[in-house]
């Protein structure tokens, strides 16, 4: 199955790295969209079909936690699988994001296989 992916991070370089690693991991994407913050992400989600969201936490305008809160209350976003990709590896933050509905959590820095493994785990559970 090919997935529609949205990468949300205020760093263009990090978005490029995640996009490349998705390709290298063998994960099949039908489309790979990008957003620079939570507000842009919501705009994309309102217009495009997305299955999986990778989101950073610390971003301007709307951060990843606020984005998760918005996603959790929108019925049209109920199907989304969200993986957090963040420098924050504290238990406090991880628990908060999982409580908001995140299905995976990858801490930066990461090696390519970490992203691939998180995706495999996520998509196996969703089948």
């Amino acid at each position, binding site marked *: 199955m090919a997935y529609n992916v949205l990468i949300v991070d*205020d*760093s*263009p*370089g*990090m978005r*490029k*790295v995640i996009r*490349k690693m998705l390709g290298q991991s063998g994960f099949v994407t039908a489309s790979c969209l990008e957003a620079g913050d939570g507000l842009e992400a919501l705009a994309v989600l309102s217009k495009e079909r997305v299955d999986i969201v990778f989101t950073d936490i*610390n*971003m*301007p305008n709307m951060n990843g936690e606020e984005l998760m809160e918005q996603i959790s209350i929108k019925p049209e976003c109920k199907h989304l699988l969200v993986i957090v990709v*963040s*420098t*924050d*590896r*504290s*238990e*406090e*933050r991880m628990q*908060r994001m999982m409580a908001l509905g995140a299905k995976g959590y990858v*801490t*930066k*820095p*990461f*090696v390519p296989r970490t992203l691939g493994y998180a995706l495999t785990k996520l998509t196996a559970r969703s089948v």
Partner: protein
Amino acid sequence: MQAVNVKPLMSDAVAEVLEAMCFMFPDGETTAAEAGYSEREWICGELDFSGSESGKFGIAVPPLAAVAIAANFLGDDESDLTSKQVSEVICELTNMICGSLLAHMNPKNAFTLSPPRPEFSSTVNGAQGERTECTFALDEGFIYTWLEIRDRI
């Protein structure tokens, strides 16, 4: 936390990020003066952080090292990179190294990082809190890191 305890954590954070994201391996401490670069040429990133501690963090690298880091990070040829891309990568590295450092300092507590900016608060005398600095040698030059802690809860 005393300044003397932060330096090994800085070393760990720099090594962790550069090895994982850039396949580069810092080679011990050095000084920028030894490496022979003028501060005006450095490519910099800095940000503010808050949580159980608040303050500022930054990194600076000479131009050749910055281009090498950015090329490795993005998986592109050095000749294909723009100065904007190089600066953005250094800012993202600032974000990741700071995140790793704060996680080593306080594993349980969440923190908030401001978006990194391509600036450099270099003046030790102008520091608004306790400041720790450390420079690590790279094949292509060095990476200078600094941490200023203003408040602790």
